[in-house]
């Protein structure tokens, strides 16, 4: 009898010890390949510290980001951690997809460094659901060589709309006299509403306008917006420093033009730096803030926030990973080598950025970054894309476009 009891106790103990030794596996989704390195580093660190936490990373292509998340949420199998494009956060926060991490976040040593504008995107009613951990900023790059050729100071990019036109005209050249312009001063940023948000809105902001007010209502219907729209249209049709085809140019088409020397001033971002250094090794280029008019310099603060989903069963372990992901070790070790922008301005002075002067500029641009907050980000793409493009093509006047666009956005927000 006692023998059997002993066996029973042993078996039960073994069974329970199995549970106690159970590994905590966190599933993380991200679209950035560099996150792999952070995950590797973290897993090794956990091993070294004897903790049984492991992170499994699934790389999700950018266009799958939203649909996959929706599908997983409705099936109840969302990942523990998600590094998603920040503009999507307001919507997902509103449907309760993310865990409230307010108290924990505020205790983090680096919390005060994080860019306010981007932090707010991950918040609702003063509660925090995500932290900015990968940044994309819209900016203007210029070809210093072409500036010199045009007799302009290669170290002075245009800072105002007026200067943009003035310099642009000198930089739009028919080099071989065949009546065809071989080099354009500027290109509009086309290819969809996403481009307009990222590169055109800073012109609106730089003119003192806004898309949404603090309550989330549309604030687009203003003279500042009309002026900005008209300005872009004028760049093509009046001042002729940008070709009309650039209204359809995607980021890649402008990049091609810039790399092949057909474009002097390029609306791009930090994500172009690595490729530029590779594809145009002989080009001297600079990173500048987008020219402003009557407002302040502005840039679109894009990138990703990292959040813990509400369906995660391992919130504490997930927090541990998050804290690590923001550490100097992770950010500088994983993001900086591939010239990704790290989330903490204090880390910009690192060994990888030091050698590339263009990277340092981004620390300043980070300070002026803005991001529109709305739960219907994807839905407003439709009217924004349509009406703005109409103006740039010269097919609609700016006032009508702004009015109609505002009406449609209001309709969408009301649904």
């Amino acid at each position, binding site marked *: 009898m006692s023998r059997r009891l002993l066996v029973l106790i042993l078996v039960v103990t073994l069974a329970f010890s199995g549970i106690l030794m159970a590994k905590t596996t966190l599933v993380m989704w991200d679209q950035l390949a560099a996150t792999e390195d952070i995950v590797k580093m973290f897993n090794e660190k956990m091993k070294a510290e004897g903790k049984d936490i492991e992170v499994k990373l699934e790389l999700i292509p950018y266009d799958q980001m939203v649909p996959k998340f929706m599908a997983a949420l409705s099936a109840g199998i969302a990942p523990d951690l998600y590094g998603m494009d920040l503009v999507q956060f307001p919507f997902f926060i509103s449907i309760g997809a993310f865990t409230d991490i307010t108290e924990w976040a505020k205790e983090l040593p680096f919390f005060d460094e994080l860019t306010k504008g981007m932090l707010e995107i991950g918040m609702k009613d003063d509660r925090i659901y995500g932290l900015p951990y990968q940044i994309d900023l819209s900016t203007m790059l210029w070809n210093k060589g072409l500036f010199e050729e045009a007799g302009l100071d290669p170290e002075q990019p245009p800072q105002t709309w007026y200067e943009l036109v003035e310099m642009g005209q000198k930089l739009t050249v028919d080099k071989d006299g065949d*009546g*065809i312009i071989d080099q354009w001063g500027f290109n509009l940023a086309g290819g969809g509403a996403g481009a307009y948000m990222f590169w055109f809105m800073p012109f609106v902001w730089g003119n003192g306008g806004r898309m949404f007010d603090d309550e989330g209502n549309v604030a687009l219907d203003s003279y500042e917006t009309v002026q900005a729209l008209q300005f872009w249209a004028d760049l093509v049709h009046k001042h002729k420093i940008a070709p*009309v085809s650039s*209204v*359809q140019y995607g980021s890649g088409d402008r990049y091609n033009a810039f790399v092949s020397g057909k474009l002097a001033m390029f609306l791009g971002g930090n994500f172009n730096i690595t490729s530029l250094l590779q594809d145009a090794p002989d080009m001297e280029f600079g990173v500048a803030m987008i020219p402003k008019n009557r407002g302040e310099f502005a840039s679109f603060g894009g990138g990703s926030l990292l959040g813990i989903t509400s369906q995660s069963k391992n919130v504490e372990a997930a927090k541990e990973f998050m804290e690590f992901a923001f550490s100097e070790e992770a950010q500088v070790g994983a993001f900086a080598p591939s010239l990704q922008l790290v989330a903490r301005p204090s880390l910009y002075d690192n060994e990888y950025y030091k050698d590339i002067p263009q990277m340092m500029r981004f620390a300043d641009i980070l300070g002026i970054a803005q991001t529109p907050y709305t739960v219907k980000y994807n*839905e407003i793409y439709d009217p924004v894309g*349509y009406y703005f493009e109409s103006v740039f093509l010269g*097919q609609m006047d700016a006032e009508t476009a702004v009015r109609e666009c505002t009406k449609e956005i209001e309709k969408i927000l009301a649904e």
Partner: protein
Amino acid sequence: MKQKTRKGLFGFIFLLPVIVMISIFFIYPLIKVVLMSFQEWKIMGGSSFVGLSNYKKALVDDEFWKTLWNTVIYAIIVTPMIFVPAVLLANALKKTSRSTKIFRTIFFIPYAISFVAASYIWQWIYNDSYGILNYILISLNLIGQPINWLGQTWLSRVMVSIMVAWKTLGFTMIIVIAGLQGISPQIYEAASIDGAEKSQVFRYITLPLLRPTLVLALILSLAGSFKAFDHFYIMTKGGPLKTTETIVMYINKIGFEFYDIGFGSAVSVIFLGILLLISYLQLKAGGFQNE
């Protein structure tokens, strides 16, 4: 077991896998799409019956009519581009010989490649800054400035249609050749005895006799045009200003980007209705063949 019964039994067994496949992947979705069109679906689960409201929504939706219009206009533009060369080439290559076989193959090859590949290949040709079309036309002094071929509404419709014509006329040509080969040579002999000229023969004898084949090919081609997706999705993304957005692109957008399942189903059902109408005509045209 009786021979006949056994035969029938095996007949059924052999067809069983087919029946199962069709039931699951065709009949069921067909019924489901109609059902879903009468419902409204929420993202995190749940649906409600809303009767005809999705259809009403479609009828007042600007974009729905726009995409329908775009698709029809495109079909009108591309069809003659396909048929005129196809019929002329078919007539030139109707006799089977070594050389005609080679020519037929050459003209058919674009049909074998994907619309994705063809779209990129031609988009590159049409590129405004580095494209070879602009280069050739400027070198020949036919145009003075590089043209943005895919950036203007009517021009992009025509240019995309040119690509589609290049890609599909080989198929139509083959069908017409088969039709031409079905015309008895004695008719031509009789015509030449009567002293008819080549072009007269073509207009008054060949074409009328070819009518059933042409009608069939036409309806196949129209159905294909209405299903246009890949090429506009890649070459123009529906632009500029949604003037080249086709109805299948719209269904794709509603269903897979906006997740409006109910509305998307309604538009799908309407689209299906249009295609069935075209196919019904196809069946009727098939009646011609049974002369």
